[in-house]
């Protein structure tokens, strides 16, 4: 802390990290002496350090419970179970982890099937529509045929009629 020698206050500089490291005991010995000199003359930093040390002591008093004696055995049993599982089960587990929390396979599977059918329905041509198109083509062909027949009949009638000069005489 080069500025402490110049009486620059870490708090005023917003360098609380330095004070935090000092309280945590993670500062190099040389810098500890510098901070201690400053804390000795700066009431704000002294108060900050005292409060932080109180927090530190309070956290240190928080003891934890001993680990269950069967922890390792339970873990190795889980590992053994996992190693025995089939590829399909592992694949299912992996997908379950990817699915949003709480989504049940009993819901997800039918929903997926419905979505798949919809996609297939759109991709495959509708057979009813195909039959309709065939009928239309047949109808159009029949109409053309009828028109051709009508034209042939007219031609026949025209041939049966006497020539124009004969009629005049």
């Amino acid at each position, binding site marked *: 802390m080069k500025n402490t020698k110049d009486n620059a206050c870490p708090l005023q500089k917003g360098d609380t990290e330095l004070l*935090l490291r000092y309280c945590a005991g993670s500062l190099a010995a040389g810098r500890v002496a510098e901070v201690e000199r400053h804390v000795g003359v700066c009431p704000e930093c002294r108060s900050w350090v005292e*409060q932080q040390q109180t927090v530190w002591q309070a*956290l240190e*008093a928080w003891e*934890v419970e001993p*680990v269950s004696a069967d*922890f*390792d055995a339970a*873990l190795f049993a889980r590992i053994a179970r*996992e190693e025995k599982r089939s590829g399909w089960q592992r694949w299912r587990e992996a997908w379950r982890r990817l699915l949003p929390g709480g989504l049940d396979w009993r819901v997800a599977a039918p929903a997926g099937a419905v979505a798949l059918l919809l996609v297939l329905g759109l991709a495959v041509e509708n057979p009813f529509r195909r039959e309709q198109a065939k009928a239309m083509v047949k109808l159009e062909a029949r109409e053309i045929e009828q028109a051709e027949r009508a034209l042939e009949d007219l031609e026949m009638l025209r041939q049966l009629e006497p020539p124009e000069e004969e009629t005049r005489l």
Partner: protein
Amino acid sequence: MAVATFEHDAELMLRVRGGDAQSFALLLAKHRGPVIHFLYRMIQNQAVAEELAQEVFLRVYRSRARYEPTAKFTTWLFRIASHVALNHIRDGKYERNQESLDQETDEGMGRQVASSAPNVEQRMLREARLAEVRRTIELLPAKQRAAVLMHKYQEMEYAQIAVALECSESAVKSLLFRAYETLRAKLAHMAG
């Protein structure tokens, strides 16, 4: 010394990758306690903490084939542990599983009163203080809580906490600054 530990843990994990179950047992014996204690302080329920720790070590075992010693083993381990704890809290399982602090404190005090030890008052005070510390830690947002616990109890550097919490080093400084500010405001009266 720290470098030797780093190399030793990474070496053990590389052996696990090669199929050596004994090395996994050694890693488990060394890191089981710190991981469970971290999870216990995060979740504040011993049974759930052990269950989550099983998940952590199972994930370590599962990912042995992909393990590369790019970071310190403990940083990688606490990254998994933080992920598991934060997911557990995010999924809302935390509140349901949490041990009742009031109930525990009352029971604890009851036991103290019933005993005829000469320092009953001191022990009651200690119990009350501990309950207050736990409650204050519990009130911190999950990421701040994880950062404080790794900083205080695992003595991890900011860079390591950043890797564990998947954020920048400056984000870690900010998390710690806000967390300790809250803790100082709420626990400063315990001085003396």
